């Protein structure tokens, strides 16, 4: 069943009011462009590298800022590279952390090669293993893990991602689309200082 959800619309729904104090970490690749298209803000930490690390950045942040909500928005390729971090997150049980994987079943940024989440059958360039990341997350100990595939489920997804006691994990099946690369600042030290200023009042 081909995906019908548009990633940019999902991210817009997740981030809602750019003026609120939701803390957002985006995995490298398209998620970094997605959160920027939704509105660049200091409480965004868009990653340009460190593949496999987005969920762990979210964990360290969630533990350090227990009163703020932390949202990790990342790709299936990034999540697959850091699968073990789901078990690490489960062991810490951060109630303020939501990990959302925008699963296009592709390494989008590098030319749309199929990832392991693509169906196990199909042409050699299209096939993966049918890996179900929500099942992996549940198996790792994140009990509240689910797959979102329909437009009608997006409002509930946004509500859960922002308010439901965590840790929660969601795979959102999204289409493969050609979208403008809406780029945030590139300088890592600047992004880090900007974030700390907004959250801590000091760089």
């Amino acid at each position, binding site marked *: 069943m081909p995906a019908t959800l548009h990633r940019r619309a999902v991210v817009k729904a997740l981030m809602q009011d750019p003026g609120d104090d939701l803390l957002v970490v985006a995995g490298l690749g398209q998620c970094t462009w997605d959160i920027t298209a939704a509105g660049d803000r200091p409480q965004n930490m868009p990653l340009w590298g*460190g593949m496999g*690390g987005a969920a762990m950045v979210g964990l360290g942040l969630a*533990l*350090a800022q227990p009163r703020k909500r932390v949202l990790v928005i990342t790709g299936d390729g990034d999540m697959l590279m850091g699968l073990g971090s789901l078990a690490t997150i489960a062991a810490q049980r951060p109630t303020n952390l939501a990990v959302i994987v925008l699963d296009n079943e592709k390494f989008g940024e590098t030319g749309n090669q199929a990832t392991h989440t693509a169906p196990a059958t199909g042409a050699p360039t299209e096939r993966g293993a049918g890996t179900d990341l929500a099942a992996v997350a549940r198996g790792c100990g994140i009990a509240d893990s689910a797959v979102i595939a329909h437009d009608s489920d997006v409002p509930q997804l946004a509500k859960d991602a922002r308010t439901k006691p965590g840790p929660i994990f969601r795979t959102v099946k999204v289409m493969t689309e050609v979208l403008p690369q809406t780029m945030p600042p590139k300088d890592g030290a600047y992004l880090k200082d900007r974030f700390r200023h907004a959250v801590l009042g000091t760089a």
Partner: protein
Amino acid sequence: MSAAATDWREQIFETLKAHDIRQVYYVPDAGHSRLIELCQTSNAMRAIVLTTEEEAMAGTLGAWLGGEKSVTLMQSSGVGNCINMLGLSKTLRYPMLMLITMRGDFGEMNPWQNAMGQATPKVLEAAGCIVFSVERAEEVQPTVHAATNMAFEGNQAVAVLLRQKLIGAKSFGKD
């Protein structure tokens, strides 16, 4: 530092506590077992067990973004798991403190440790870390204290290698 701590592992714990280190990332090594236990049972720290050492570099970034200090405890083979992630500190200029128990170093009896053990300081330096090396018990506390200051005052990756001359080599029944 508490006056009671005479064992260097306990001195490390007291030093980390005095520096307000809140998150302790680790993949166990026998040389760190006492320190890990102290951190696990401390009210001031959260011990975070990892599936692979590279998780620590990303966790450390998140902690710093949220205003908390962290440390990573691992053995030298774990450094090999971290190479790409070690570079994050240079790119984002954030503190990354690592306490590394050495294997494949002085008198190692397991040859599978030697290649990565010998590469460990070179790999760390190549990624932009400052590297200190400790062979004597009385140097442990001052070195960890100095390394912690340099990491957090300098937004810098700093590693302390706890050498096998200090921790001893596992005998594998062949003393």
